């Protein structure tokens, strides 16, 4: 990324009261284990994150790192085991919370566009119902006008051609656009998008990401973009922030340009090196800076570093405790940074 692209506004710390604030979120799922005790799976551990007004924040990590769980806590689908969630400075608790429901200010776009639409209802019915529910006094004409407006915004024209169809009659890209229309129909201030393009054809991905970018700029909505793919993340977030997650913890958070150019956490370094680049002349080292490819366990977590087992630079002290460190560009969950190389993994500017 070129440095002149960076505007200081978005990459820097968000405004006085962030739109959404997560403080020390813990999420523990109980699973039936032996007959004596249930197994407890520590999916999120002490996660704190601020999401500013009009900001795009990306959550990146391997499958099982807890990024989708965190997304569901932000949308209110899950209630965290412990920790606090603030929306606009007010504390909220979870599903059917009055403060959130009276505004419908957080919406969700799911990965599988086919599963996210009711298969036996037409697109029109799927779009109509939420608008009607939250605008009881609107006439059918007003709602129809609103739907038309939404369809224009997401670029599905002429709208009549799509509204009468059932989900299986549309292509994946079209369905994903419908999901976006539904998410913005209640004019939320924050949208959580969970891998919205991973099931979409490559040639259409960028147009969907462009659409999200446009909604972010035009309508001023904040986005939480959840993905395992750093390339699309870089495209959508541009000057936004990225939070790299590993085993339920945020290991590095900072401006996405800085994190990709100068990754500091050993896990982030491995992750960036593993991303394939669409250029055969530009290939990094095949051997990743990792001890093993085995993901750690989410059970019986101690106080030490979760990445200890796979870290090339780990010392004995890493098993005892872990503390976040602020560098000049990012916040990194590693107390051993002086031993981790700080050179760029790739020359991003080519």
């Amino acid at each position, binding site marked *: *990324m*070129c440095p002149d*692209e960076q505007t200081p506004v978005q990459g820097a710390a968000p405004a006085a009261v962030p739109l959404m604030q997560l403080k020390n979120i813990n999420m523990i799922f109980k699973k039936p284990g032996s007959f004596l005790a249930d197994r407890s799976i520590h999916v999120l551990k002490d996660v704190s994150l601020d999401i500013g007004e009009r900001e795009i924040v990306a959550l990146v*990590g*391997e*499958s099982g790192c807890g990024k989708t769980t965190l997304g569901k806590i932000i949308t209110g689908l899950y209630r965290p085991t412990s920790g606090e969630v603030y929306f606009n400075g007010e504390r909220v608790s979870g599903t059917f919370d009055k403060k959130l429901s009276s505004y419908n200010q957080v919406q969700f776009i799911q990965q599988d566009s086919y599963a996210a639409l009711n298969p036996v209802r037409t697109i029109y019915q799927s779009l109509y119902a939420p608008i009607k529910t939250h605008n009881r006094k609107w006439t059918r004409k007003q709602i129809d006008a609103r739907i038309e407006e939404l369809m224009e915004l997401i670029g599905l024209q002429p709208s009549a051609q799509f509204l009468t169809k059932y989900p299986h009659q549309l*292509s*994946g*890209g079209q369905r994903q656009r419908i999901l976006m229309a539904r998410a913005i129909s209640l004019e939320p201030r924050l949208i959580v998008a969970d891998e919205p393009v991973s099931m979409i*054809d*490559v*040639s*259409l*991905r*960028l*147009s969907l*990401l*462009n659409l999200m970018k446009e909604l972010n700029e035009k309508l001023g909505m904040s986005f939480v973009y959840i993905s*395992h*793919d*750093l*390339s*699309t993340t*870089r*495209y959508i977030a*541009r000057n936004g922030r990225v939070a790299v997650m590993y085993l339920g913890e945020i290991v590095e958070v900072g401006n996405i340009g800085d994190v*990709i150019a100068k990754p500091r956490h050993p896990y982030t370094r*491995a*992750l*960036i*090196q*593993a*991303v*394939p*680049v*669409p*250029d*055969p*002349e*530009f*290939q990094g080292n*095949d*051997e*990743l800076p*990792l001890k093993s*490819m085995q*993901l750690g366990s989410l059970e019986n977590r101690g106080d030490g570093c979760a990445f200890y087992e796979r870290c090339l630079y780990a010392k004995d002290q890493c098993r005892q405790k872990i503390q976040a460190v602020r560098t000049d560009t990012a916040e990194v969950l590693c107390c051993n940074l002086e031993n981790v190389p700080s050179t760029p993994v*790739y*020359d*991003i*500017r*080519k």
Partner: protein
Amino acid sequence: MCEHSDNIAQFRGVSIDYPLKKYTIRAVTDVTFSLRRGQITALVGESGSGKTTLASSLIRCISEPGRVAEGEISFYGRTADGKIAETRVDLLTDKEMRAFRWSKVSMVFQAAQSALNPVLTVREQFSETLDAHEPKHSKEEKEARFRALLEYVKLDAERVLASYPHELSGGMKQRVMIAFALLLDPELIILDEPTTALDVITQNYIFTLLKKINRERGISMLLMTHDISVVAKFADYMGVMYGGRLMEYGSVAEVFRHRYHPYTRGLIGATPSIIGDISDMKPIEGSPPDLLNLPEGCIFSPRCPQCRAICMTQEPPMREFADGGKGKCYFYREGEADVSR
């Protein structure tokens, strides 16, 4: 037979039909290309481009009711005395096919979950397949072979052999599938989106492993993927498919360097990357072709930024060049001498 010794398999004018009740879908139309021996060839395409159908035709695993309607498929395998002999795959009887499949050409599927039998342990599955093809091995021989294979793909053989598929993680399952594909020492492995469901770190491990197998054991590979970055990192040769047609074929370095074909150029430009300038990346306008309602002329013409009048009336021929590269476009390597006629 000189030219054939370079190739492990060859498709000549292959078309594959899906006859349905009311109409017939032509999933693959007139594809001609070769797989180089000992190399990794990638087929890139979006969903519905026909890449999986084409590759499955090599081991007659096309999903029902697909049929090879036209063309010839040849496999140039080594016989017992080390010579190379042609096998017409499309003419084999079902019985011959069963012997050919897996011992000459094996496959790693996209969904390892559904490819492995959920009620058999890994040991039972390996043993069943080995017995079906080479029944004469003793128990100790088999066990030693399984262990060697699983250790080769860096798995804990003791544990994995006794496990059921659901007890393994996604990355482990895919490595078991790779070991399974190597079981009968094939000459070619077909890889159908082997890492689609996996995260980038596991993907990197799997491809590093596959490349090692290719280089150390000399096994040729045919990789099907929608991700052109994986091709850039991993493959030696590549074919680009669109709407059932082969649009471009050449060595990976050449295809990426010149970007002659407008679809390939669009595809590379539409792939986000963690390097380079974001503003250079842009989507291909329009939507993928509907196989039941293909456009007149070149099927890419409605989305092509270089589309001219001739493109909308007649389908362009495949232009072939001396270095082996070819492309289906009127303006492909314009000005150079076409060797196809």
